[in-house]
């Protein structure tokens, strides 16, 4: 299920539209994930406030989206681009990779809410493929 040239074009186009909203989108997706899939809160027990819109959630949403934006820029070589983050997630954070799918789903929900007319089924499938590829690159170093 590798990315076609069309997928790459669609993802870059949508990312161009997202522009400065990226941080908010990341924060909202993270907040939704923590609410809708409470088991994901186990990874953030060290935060004072896990509610959507809280300072740690906003900050971390921005961090995540920064990484996703970097992935869009290096879309031709995701394993290479995500190598260090993969090591971080594998050896230090030890996030079960099934959670990447969960965050991806919530990112798609936020995109559907904020870009209802742009998020057509074709854009949806390209984004889903891209986020799956990012998740795969992130899982590279696990074992």
């Amino acid at each position: 299920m590798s990315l076609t040239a069309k997928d790459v074009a669609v993802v870059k186009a949508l990312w161009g539209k997202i522009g400065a909203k990226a941080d908010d989108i990341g924060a909202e997706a993270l907040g939704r994930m923590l609410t809708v899939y409470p088991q994901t809160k186990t990874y953030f027990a060290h935060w004072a406030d896990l509610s959507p819109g809280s300072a740690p959630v906003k900050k971390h949403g921005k961090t995540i989206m920064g990484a996703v934006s970097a992935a869009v820029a290096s879309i031709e070589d995701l394993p290479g681009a995500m190598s260090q983050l993969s090591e971080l997630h594998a050896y230090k954070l030890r996030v079960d990779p099934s959670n990447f799918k969960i965050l991806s789903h919530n990112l798609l929900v936020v995109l559907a809410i904020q870009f209802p007319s742009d998020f057509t089924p074709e854009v949806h499938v390209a984004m889903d493929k891209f986020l799956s590829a990012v998740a795969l690159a992130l899982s590279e170093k696990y074992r």
Partner: protein
Amino acid sequence: MVEWTDFERATIQDIFSKMDYESVGHNALARCLVVYPWTQRYFGNFGNLYNAAAIIGNPKVAAHGAVVLHGLDKAVKNMDNIKATYAELSVLHSEKLHVDPDNFRLLADCLTIVVASRLGTGFTADVQAAFQKFLAVVGAALRKQYH
């Protein structure tokens, strides 16, 4: 027995009372067939599903989307007894249609995304949680008679 909070009950009733079943059903099923193309295996007699435009414009997809969504009505009206309510449909999906139950989650995710785009900011995280819980319970009930 599934415990529903007052908020969850009210949210589900509210979402479905305002829903355009035909449009949402059509969009959710079409989206599922485009985003997860292997689901097309269950619709061999639907004719042209060759690309996204064909799927979205296919009248059988539209009609069946509405059927599926109206099927959800049973659960909306029987929230305290979803398992028993879907016993027959579960047998149908297992014995006759041979649908891999993983697909229920795929369609549920597409339905969540369609409803999210219709409700916009009204689809808060808490509303999303209630909606996804509802769809998960329906999926589990549909899975119940598989063996």
